[in-house]
């Protein structure tokens, strides 16, 4: 089977960058990573048809090897559509997460934390929230009204230092 070296390199780069991005904690980057990976995979499927050839419409005087294998393109189209839908859905989820919590990060699971605390496996140094704000949006949202207000960095740090379990529970229930 013949493969196109350029496509192969591009595919490798896309997958590598995609995997790097998906390991980030910011959801938008994860989304970008997923887009890159899905397109890298599409390129991979495209290449399985081998050497480029004539369009697969039967004509006289052509050997069966001269045609391009059309099946991978059919698979590819389906894969593109599915990936498109997934990305749209994920984008909606990320936006919703942003609207609700002003959070563009994968958040911890409160039950996990609670279990870790009860069995004494919680290490404050490792498991507590990092107080540095990675987002450029520095507003804090008031959970009751949904309005935003600006907070000073000092106040924010003191808030994020101790998001107690009760807080999280209330947030989950409301």
């Amino acid at each position, binding site marked *: *089977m013949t493969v196109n070296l350029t496509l192969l390199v591009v595919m490798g780069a896309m997958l590598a960058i995609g995997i790097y991005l*998906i390991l980030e904690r910011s*959801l938008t980057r*994860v989304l970008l990573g*997923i887009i890159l*990976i*899905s397109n890298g*995979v599409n390129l*991979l*499927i495209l*290449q*399985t048809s081998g050497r480029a050839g004539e369009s697969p419409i039967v004509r006289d005087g052509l050997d069966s090897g001269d045609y391009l*294998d059309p*099946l*991978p393109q059919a*698979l590819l189209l*389906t*894969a593109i559509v*599915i990936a498109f*839908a*997934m990305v749209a*859905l*994920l984008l909606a*989820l*990320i936006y*919703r*997460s942003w609207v*609700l*919590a002003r959070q563009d990060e*994968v*958040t911890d*699971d409160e*039950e*996990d934390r609670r*279990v870790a605390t*009860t*069995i004494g496996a919680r290490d404050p140094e490792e498991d507590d929230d990092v107080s540095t704000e990675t987002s450029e949006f520095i507003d804090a949202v008031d959970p009751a009204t949904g309005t935003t207000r600006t907070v000073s960095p000092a106040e924010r740090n003191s808030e994020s230092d101790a998001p107690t379990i009760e807080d999280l529970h209330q*947030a*989950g229930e*409301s």
Partner: protein
Amino acid sequence: MQFDVVDFVPLTVLIPFFGAAFAFAFYRNQGTQKAITIGALIITVILEIVLLSEVWHGGTHAVQLAGWPAPFGISMVIDRFAALMLVVSSIITLAVLLYAVGQGAAEERNDSGPVSIFYPTYLILVAGVSNAFLAGDLFNLYVGFEIFLTASYVLLTLGGGEARIRAGVTYVVVSILSSMLFLITIGLMYAATGTVNLADLAVKLAELDSGTQLMLHVMLLVAFGIKAAVFPLAFWLPDSYPTAPAPVTAVFAGLLTKVGIYAMIRTETLLFPGERINTVLMIVAALTMIVGILGALAQADIKRMLSFTLISHIGYLVFGLALSSVIGMAGTIYYVAHHITIQTTLFLVTGLIERRAGTANVDRLGGLARISPVLAVLFFLPAMNLAGIPPFSGFVGKLGIMQGGIAENTWITWTLVSASVLTTLLTLLAVSRIWARGFWRKAEDVENPERILLQKSQVHARAANKRLLPSAMVAPTALLVALSLAFTVFAGPLMNFSRAAAQDMYERTPYLEAVLGEDRVEGVREELVEFTTGYVVDLDTDDDGAAEFAPVRTSLQPDVESDERGSTSVDVEEQDDEAEGGGR
């Protein structure tokens, strides 16, 4: 032109799809939506039961969509295993749907959010699951996976509250990644063999060199392993499942991971049979069991605890699968059917507990056995069933798998058997802890009880029962409990059926003949039969106890070993007639 009932197999996918379309068209009218959804599912269940009875006697059948012959077109294949999975999954989804309808009726007042999407999405989930069970080629399997996964994303984040979105994002990202891995594998398989048809792949993959085979094999298993929640790849499950509404969690827990297991079983039997990575699978199975159940013991929330037992019991299925013997696989098939039912039932009961008591946290529960004896019975039976206490089906399934392990008789299978026993005991500990705390202890003894549990008198409690546990929700749950008990009553025929299904899958010729036609299979039949007798059926049967189970001669199957010419298909028919007479 004559039509066979079995040719209507694609309808099991199409009916839910059309139902979804119609239900969506009536989004303004909840009553019509419910009627359409329930109607579509009832028709599907009836059709699938008919199909099961056809396949029970007639064997594997393939339908070539649009009449294109097998390696080129899309085929849908129904064999005994697929038919059983279809029927069990549809009955479960129907029961859960009735439960959801009951819950919806009970909560009409505070109905908020775009609820009108629940019913269509639910039907799409059913269609996707059916499509995955019936898929005759790898890409169609991928499409089936994507259909039900997309539906599951919507169901999981229903209402769009903060906790659900948080859980949903993790779930979606992990699922998309596993799908990408699956897609990469499909691409590589196509590059290596030039086909995506499962039957065609089964023939062509054997011609590849063993390194390539191993790579494709492992990649497929990892992709399916994420979906099936096998130990190192199961981290997403307890995070995401418990946040969804009770009916949604129930149907997810019952079905979605089992589709992953189904795909793993197909991989192991049809595409890459043999014992190449069995040891690795067994280690993974043991870790899944132990780590899963230890996770369950650490939980106080019943839903999360059940999610962990779900992972843990996936380990049994992988164990049975890794044995590569008909007896092990038969146990697995039986156990899959049992586990779908039991896990769904338990999540539904937990939903009821949460409604009645206001919480599913065992630290705050108490006195439920006194307050609501019905609820106590509904919890007790499936819980004991999950733990595998003898009269119940969990015991039968575990016994089947362990017999397979003992029949194999190597140190690793003995380790696995001990791990299984240990896991069973720990499961019993986990569920009896819920029982003792939530049901047996007095509500007054609870440190910080829900106020609703402290009723002044039995009359008050009964009034609250009536209000909080409507019969429209209790009845479907009771139905599922009855179904799980039926697995015990009909364990004999079901086990025979599972063995026949396992035998079919390991022989591979019925599947290949149905899809590719006899001519194509004739060329490779010798190899296939040799492979089957050499690797799979030949068990060490010196031991008298195991001899009864280890050889795979049930009334439903041909005697492969003594058949030199390999004309197994003829034997199947003859034997089937006998079984028909004897079975009824």
